[in-house]
């Protein structure tokens, strides 16, 4: 078994301070290896999205540690992930979030590549990523608002894969889609992961989808009473 790409150790999150402090994620621990997919399940309000945001480096944990490829990624109340930014990418619940509305899909991808993988051929990476994500290259010149829900979600996936991440975080990537499209998109997602060797952290409500991942991490709702 290969070494873990992503290590999440005793990570918890709280909002507010002092008397108003509330835990939104109880301490959670797990590991993912390359090519593995983990489904994170739990009731609403158990902190699944918060966990996804912390792994993505968008917010700092209140306690615990996150390592990516053995390097420190996030520690309590500080983010240390600027240099290896490209290693963890994500697909949001609302695909619009991954794409700048006034940019075309190609521009969104090119901007990210220029910053995260300077020196590499953007055209080549874009072509590779669109193929992996099953995104129609003819739509690269469109803006997010000109795509359907399924197309936009595939565009977001292509944008994330374009910078060759080691970990992909997908936060309920199909919840905004109709059942048929959702089925197709999630099947593509899992196939892509198997093909590209990226580790997948999939936040989902769907037990069927969770069953198709290699493992499942269940997080429990933290006690909603005030701490102290």
């Amino acid at each position, binding site marked *: 078994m290969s070494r873990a790409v992503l290590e999440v150790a005793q990570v918890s999150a709280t*909002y*507010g*301070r*002092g008397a*108003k402090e509330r835990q*939104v994620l109880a301490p959670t621990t797990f590991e993912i290896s390359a090519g593995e997919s983990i489904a994170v399940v739990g009731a609403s*309000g158990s902190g699944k*999205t918060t966990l996804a945001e912390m792994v*993505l*480096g*968008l*917010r700092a944990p209140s306690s615990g540690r996150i390592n990516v490829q053995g390097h420190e990624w996030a520690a309590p109340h500080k983010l240390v992930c600027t240099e290896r*930014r*490209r290693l963890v*990418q*994500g697909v*949001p619940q*609302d695909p*619009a*979030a*991954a*794409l*700048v*509305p*006034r940019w075309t899909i190609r521009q*969104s991808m090119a*901007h*990210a590549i220029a*910053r*995260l993988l300077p020196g590499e051929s953007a055209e080549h990476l874009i072509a590779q990523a669109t193929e992996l994500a099953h995104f129609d290259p003819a739509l690269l010149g469109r*803006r997010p*608002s*000109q*795509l*359907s829900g399924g197309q936009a979600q595939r565009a977001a996936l292509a944008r*994330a894969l374009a*910078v060759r991440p080691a970990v992909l975080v997908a936060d309920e990537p199909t919840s905004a889609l109709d059942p048929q499209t959702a089925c197709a998109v999630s099947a593509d997602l899992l196939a892509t992961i198997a093909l590209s060797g990226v580790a997948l952290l999939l936040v989902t409500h769907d037990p069927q989808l969770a069953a198709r991942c290699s493992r499942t991490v269940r997080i429990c709702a933290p006690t909603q009473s005030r701490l102290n």
Partner: protein
Amino acid sequence: MKNRRPGGRQNKLLSLVSRLLSGVVLLLIAGALPWLSRTDPAAAVLRARYAELEPTPEALAAIREQLGLDGGPLASSLRWWSAVLRGDLGNSWVSGAEIGPGVWQAVSVSATLTAFAIIVALLVTSCLIAPAAVRALRGLEHRGSGPVGVALTALPEFLLASILLVIVSVQLRWLPPYGWTGLETAILPALALGIPAGGLLGRLLADAISGAGEEPWVNVWRLAGAGAPVILSGVLRRAAATTIDQLGLVFIGLLGGAVAVEQVFAIPGLGRYLLGSANAQDIPALQAGVLLMAGAAVLIGTLTALARRWLRGGPLPPGSLPPAPEARGDGRIARFTAIITCSALLAILAFGLPRDPYAIEHQRLAAPSLFLPFGADSSGRDLLARVAHGTLGTITPAVLIVLCAIIIGLLLAVLGDISRGPAEIANATPPILAGVIIAALMGPSVGGAALAVLWVTWPPLTAHAASLIDEARAMGHIRWLPLAGMSRFEIFTRHILPATLPALLRHGMLRLPGVALALAALGFLGLGAQPPMPEWGLLLAEGIGYVERAPWTTLTPAIALVLTSVCAVAVAGMRRAPQKPVRAMAKTAEPAPAGISGA
């Protein structure tokens, strides 16, 4: 849960510290006003009291000691405050008499006048909200607050006071034109103060009532069989809860408006007292007046806070209620009015700018004729030229003020809660009061007046900038931009600023006419531009002495001012013309991609 910002407690602490600090700084500054004065206070007093004495260093030192000015600004500030706490307001620099009795008498006059004005305002308000309440009760679709409310708020107090004076006292001779001798002298000032305040209150409340009447719970109550009085009290309470903050500001605004009205009708109230002491640079008298006026503002602020707590059923964090509804109006009529008034102003500019506003080449008070369309003023100068150049002289500083306020707003919005304290104080300062203080310190000038108006213009723009930036930061694609490797600086300059600037510029332009009117009000009171400069307020003040012999001297600048006020109100009503209500700001903040197809 998701949207709540982390570290709420820290923010609260920061804004508390900011409020406390700015309060303490304000108190210290109030005490040290004599030291902030541009002229040497000792020299000023020497000039005022002993005109024959040479200003030798010894004489100045003796005066300083006598006034308690030795020992620097902090010491004299603390000395002044300890005297104030003992009930001693000090002695006037000009007359040497005790300040206490005079200023208290002025306060009692002003309090009476304000009470009358509030009665007028409440009468006007209840007339304005009645139709909206009836429509809400019957479940009919709301309408805008209507042209009546707009007409009532179109004139600032100093202009309305001048017009009432000219028509009712001078032309009709129904009521005495000035003084404070009985009920009949209180009617006109109370109307001049109460009508604009009541119009504004009525418009705010009528819009809030229409908004509350459309909320789903009203229907639920109706279906549950609640009677009209129950629904009405519910709707009124809901409407009051959303407008209470603005109501407090309207009442504080009465204090500032009173300065102008008291000046026009020669009423010996606090406003006139302040103006007199500012003109005489009698700083201790000014200090006492400002202290009492600030006390009144704090009292109103506290009452507003208590009322808000009661209306909203306990303390709530800011932003937990939907924002107060904006003024609604018929977009087309508003745009039509704005275009008409703007083109009238442009016509005055086009015909008047080529003429010379300073040359004295006509007969004094010459009547309007084909060659002199607006007539001549008391020195024989062309009034059309003066009004046109006055338009430039008023609008140019106004544009600069608005641009400065936008820049300050953006800078302070980035700093966040640190600016909360100064913003609250500045927001509650009537521009005329700020103008009085600055004029007393620096002497009256256009720059001083502009500074005073800037002081009250930045807080709303800062608040708007802060909420726009928050809104932009919360947008999904901006939250996720770090994933694309963008630095925080780049995200701010390339994504957050472009999303906020258009809305902020639009807001600034909407404030432009109001800023111009505030400048004109200061000019009218002699606190801004100085003769012979052509400036609207100054022109009006110069003309009002000749209103019986040559009404055009007053009418022509008044027309320019009325055009600007009407334009201001029309532009404000235009803002949400064809767009969808609510959220329009969030949507328009994001530049829409070209050609959104129906796919």
